[in-house]
Every structure is written in C-alpha cells, then in structure tokens.
C-alpha cells in the first residue's frame, strides 16, 4: 500500500512542477515536456533518478521525466559493453516499447477513427 502512496505523491509533485512551468514560467506544453525530459536525462546522468525510481516506483516511472532517464540508461548499458558506439545502439533500446506502442496505436487510431468535434 505504501508503494501506491509514494507513487501518488511523487508522480503528483512532478506534475505540479510541470504545471508551474506552464503557469508561472509561461512555457508552451511542448517546451514544458522538453524541459522535463532533459531534466530526467540529467538526473539519471548524476545517478539520482534510479534511487527516485526505487523509492517512488510508478510515481517516477510514469511521468515523462522517466523517458529521459530510460534514454540515458539504455545508452550507458550498451556503452559499458562496446564503448562510444554503444551510445548510438543503446540510446533508444529501453524506450523502444513506449515509442513503438505510441506510433502503432496512434496510427491505428487515425486509421479507424475520425476527429471528434
């Protein structure tokens, strides 16, 4: 049960940061999402995102910041095996499921559904 509590709190707080960027920072949604992804990548680089994931589970895994984390993580796993070229081969490895699913389901949505209103 505790897992769910911390997932809620941490996930909610990351969304509040996003909301503050929108409202106070006056960034567009695209800028806000980009800032959060870059933040996730930098935090992973500093070794801070993994502990956050251990602590908050889906609270850190579901927000878009985890996309930045997963990109760096994939690149580092391969880079440890094969050096610099591993960054290129590993970069999109962990995020493949998310990107592929989003492309495939979005295409199917466009195939079978018409715009609402």
């Amino acid at each position, binding site marked *: 049960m505790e*897992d*769910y509590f911390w*997932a*809620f709190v941490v*996930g*909610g*707080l*990351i*969304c*509040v940061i*996003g*909301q503050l960027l*929108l409202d*106070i920072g006056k960034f567009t*949604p*695209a*800028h*806000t*999402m*980009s800032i959060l*992804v*870059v933040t996730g*990548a*930098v935090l*992973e*680089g500093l070794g801070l995102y993994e502990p956050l994931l251990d602590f908050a*589970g*889906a*609270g850190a*895994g*579901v*927000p*878009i910041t985890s*996309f*930045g984390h997963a*990109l*760096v993580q994939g*690149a*580092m796993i391969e*880079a*440890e095996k094969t*050096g610099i070229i591993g*960054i290129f081969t590993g*970069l999109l490895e962990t995020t493949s*499921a*998310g*990107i592929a*699913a*989003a*492309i495939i*389901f*979005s*295409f199917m*949505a*466009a195939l*079978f*559904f*018409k*715009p*609402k209103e």
Partner: protein
Amino acid sequence: MSNKQKKKLTPVQQQYHSFAKEREPRRPVLANCLRAFLVGGLICILGQGIFDFFRYVLDFSEKAAINPMVVTLIFLAIILTVYGVYDKMAQWAGAGTAVPITGFANAMAAAAIEHRTEGFVLGVGGKMFKLAGAVIVFGVFSAFIVALLKTTLAMLGVI
C-alpha cells in the same frame, strides 16, 4: 515580452501592451497545481497497479514489468483520446494529464487523427510527431550528451 523587444515598440503599442496585460485573465495557479497533483498522482497509481499486475500476477521480473506497463498506459490513453475523453480530462487537469507518459501518447494520437484529412502520408505520418517530436529530439540529444560525458569520464578513469 522582454525589455529588448519592448523598446522597439511605439509608445502607443507600449500603452496597449500594458493595457492588455492588466486585463489578461489571472491564472488560478494554486487550483491548477492541486488538480495537476491529484490527476497526475492518480495516473501514477494506475501505473503502479498495472506494474504490480504484470509483476505478481503474470510473473514478470521487476525490470521487465516496466515495458508492458508503459505499453498498457499508452494503449489506454489512446483509447480515451479516440473517444474525446482524454482531451476533456486535460482541460481540467492541465499538466496532470500532460506530464505522464499518457500525455505523450495523447499528443501523438490526437495529432494523427486531426491531420488525417491531409492524407495518410503527409497528414498522419508527417504530423504525428508535432509535439512528441520535440520530446524525442531533446530527450535523445540531451541523453546523448549525458551518456557521452559519462562514458568519456569513465574511460579517463575519473568516475
């Protein structure tokens, strides 16, 4: 608007600018943040539930359960987008629906459906990444820099 841009304006334009700014509706920042917290947190609870389902019911390992969780969330978000539900939720929740991975999926599906009238290649294919493209480009580039720095430092024996 920055001061540099302001200087280029004529006095009348400057007057109008401050006039318009005074009448701009104030954003209810606190209420927006509370909604974002509530909805964003609930989406993460849902994610945790799906994660636990794959982990304990279908016996995935802790690392392996993340991928099916992400795919399931994306699938659900796109179903809700198709029926116009996600966009209604987004109007109320703001960043609460935009920041989770479901917002990324929603942006892609909405763009794909919206541009369908322009054809499948130029519309759906070309415009699907209208917002999601920025996330992928900046994510990939920043991750590349971070990974390159870490790898170089590791090779030099600094870390």
